[in-house]
C-alpha cells in the first residue's frame, strides 16, 4: 500500500474541490438563470472534458503549459517553477478535467429554484448576495454536495491526464491511480489489490451517496411546486 500516493491523491482532490466548487457555483448559477446568445455553445464547451480522452487533454496541457510554449515560459517566470511535472500543474489539469462534474449538478440545482421564489426574495428587499446565501444555497446544497463528491472521487481516480501532465514523481505527482499501475508493472499484485479495493469501496460509497442526494434534490423540487 503506497500511503504517500494515497495522501497525495487526497491532497490533490481536496485542493481541486476547494478551488473548483466556488467557481462552479458562480458559473452554474449564471448558466441556470441567464439567457444569452451562444449559451448552448458555452454549455457544450463545459461538457467537452466528458467526451475527450483524458490523455488528449493531458497532451494539450503538456504542450500548452510546457517550457516550449509562450504561456508555459510566462507562468514559469511568474511562479518560479514549471507547471508540468509539478503538483500545481496537476491541480490545473484536475480543475479543467472536472469542470463538467462540478458545473452540471450545480446548474441543474439552480435551475430547480422556482422563479417565484427568486422574484419574491428580490421584492422582499434582499440583496443578491443575501438571496444567494440565505435562500438559494440552502435550496441547492444537495447539488453542490453532489458536485463536490463527484469531483473529489473523480480526481482520486484520474489516471491519463495526471500521467501526461505530471509524470510519475513520488511525493510530487505520483497519485494512487499511477501507483496501482506501477505496482502491477512490478508484479506487486498484493499492493495493487489493496489500493484498488480502497478506491472501489470509496467509489461505491460515493455513488450510493450521490444517488440518494439527487433523489433528495428531486424530492425538494416536488415539495416546492406542490
Amino acid at each position, binding site marked *: 500500500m503506497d500511503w504517500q500516493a494515497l495522501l497525495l491523491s487526497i491532497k490533490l482532490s481536496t485542493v481541486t474541490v476547494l478551488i473548483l466548487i466556488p467557481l462552479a457555483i458562480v458559473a452554474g448559477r449564471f448558466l441556470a438563470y441567464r439567457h444569452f446568445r451562444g449559451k448552448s455553445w458555452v454549455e457544450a464547451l463545459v461538457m467537452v472534458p466528458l467526451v475527450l480522452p483524458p490523455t488528449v487533454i493531458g497532451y494539450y496541457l503538456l504542450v500548452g503549459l510546457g517550457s516550449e510554449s509562450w504561456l508555459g515560459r510566462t507562468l514559469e517566470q511568474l511562479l518560479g517553477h514549471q507547471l508540468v511535472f509539478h503538483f500545481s500543474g496537476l491541480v490545473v489539469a484536475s480543475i479543467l478535467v472536472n469542470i463538467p462534474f462540478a458545473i452540471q449538478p450545480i446548474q441543474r440545482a439552480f435551475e430547480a429554484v*422556482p422563479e*417565484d*421564489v*427568486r*422574484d*419574491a*426574495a*428580490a*421584492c*422582499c*428587499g*434582499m*440583496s443578491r448576495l443575501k438571496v444567494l446565501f*440565505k*435562500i438559494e444555497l*440552502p*435550496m441547492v446544497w444537495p447539488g453542490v454536495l453532489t458536485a463536490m463528491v463527484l469531483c473529489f472521487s473523480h480526481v482520486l481516480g484520474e489516471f491519463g491526464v495526471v500521467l501526461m501532465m505530471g509524470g510519475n514523481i513520488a511525493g510530487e505527482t505520483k497519485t494512487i491511480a499511477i501507483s496501482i499501475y506501477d505496482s502491477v508493472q512490478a508484479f506487486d499484485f498484493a499492493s495493487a489489490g489493496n489500493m484498488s479495493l480502497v478506491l472501489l469501496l470509496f467509489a461505491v460509497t460515493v455513488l450510493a451517496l450521490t444517488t440518494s442526494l439527487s433523489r433528495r434534490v428531486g424530492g*425538494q423540487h416536488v*415539495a*416546492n*411546486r*406542490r
Partner: protein
Amino acid sequence: MSQTVADLYCRIQQAKPIKLDAEFVCKAGEVLAVVGPSGGGKSTLLRMIAGLSQPEQGEIRYGDKPWFNADNKVQLTPQQRHLGYVPQHFGLFPNLTALENVVAALDHIPKAEREARAKDWLERVNLHGLPDRLPAQLSGGQRQRVALARALAREPSVLLLDEPFSAVDRETRERLYLELARLKEQLAIPVIMVTHDLNEALLLADSMILISQGKMLQQGRPREVLTRPRDEAVAKQMGLRNIFDAEVIAQEEERQITWLKFGEHLIASTYFDNLDIGTKVRWVIPNQGVRFNSIKKGRLCRSFNKLDITVDSMLVMGESVRVLASVVGVEHKIHAEVPLHLAQQLELVEGSETTVALKSELIHILEP
C-alpha cells in the same frame, strides 16, 4: 403605513418578447384588477411594475417618484421600489418557517422588532399557531396567507398580487375573498391584482383594466366594463355572446334613448351620441338582461324591447337553465339564463315559442 401613500402611474409599451401596450393609474387605497385571458401579458405587466423585468418603452411612477423611465434611463430595482409582491405560486422560501419567511422581508426595521412584527402580521392574516411550520407543511390557503403577510409586513408602497386565488381550492378561495375584502378597508396603498377571473374583479376590485394579447382594451369600474363594453373585442372578452346587428332609426337625446331596428323588432337602447339615422351598429345585451316573463306568448304589453323567439336548446346547470334560442325574423341567436323553476312554470322545452323582454338599461351600443 409608514410609507408616503401615492398613486401609481404606469405606461408600458413593448413589441418583444411579449407585445404590451397599456397605460393606467392605480389610485392609493384602490384595488385595480388586471383582467384578461391567460398568456395575454398580465403577469409580465405585474413583473414590470415590480422591477423584475424591464419594458422597452414607457414610464412607471409612484407619486412623483420615477420607478422606470425609458427616456431618462431610470430603472429602480425591486429592492428600491419597496413593494409587496405575492407571486402566483406564492414564492415562499422552502427552507424557512412561516415566521422566518415573514421576518426575511423585514430588513428595513431594527432586528429586535422583526419577530414581533412578523407574528403580528401572521395573526392579522388569520394564520394562528403555525409560525414554526415549513411551507411544505402548510395547506394552499395557509401558504397564501404567509405570502400575503410577508408582502404586507414590509409596509409596501404598492401591493402586487399575481392570480392570488388560482392555486387554492374553491372553499379556501371563498374565505380568502372575504379576508381580502376586509383587508382592503385597512390598506391605503394602491393594490394591483392580476386575475383571469372576471368574477374576482367584480367581487374585489374598485376598477379594472382588460388586457388581451398585450393590448389594454378598456379601463373602468368592473360593473361598467361588463355592462358598457367599449367595443366588440371587449364584449367578447367579458364573455358577452349576445352581440347583434341593427340600424339606428331615431335619436331621443332628452330621454337618452337611441332607437334601433332589429329585424322587425324595435329596440330602445341607452343613448349613444353622434349616431346618424340609418347607421348600421352592433349592440349587446348580457345574458341576465334577457327576461322571460311569466306570461305566455303575445301578451307582453310594451311594443318595444321584446323579441319573439324559438328555443333551440336548453341546458340545466344547477338552479338555472341556459337557453339558446333563434330570434324570429333575424338570423341571430340569443343566449339567456332562466331560473329552473321559471323554466318549469313556463313549460319551456326545445322548440317552444315565446316572447322575451330585454332590459333597456342593459342594452348597449358598441363603438364601431
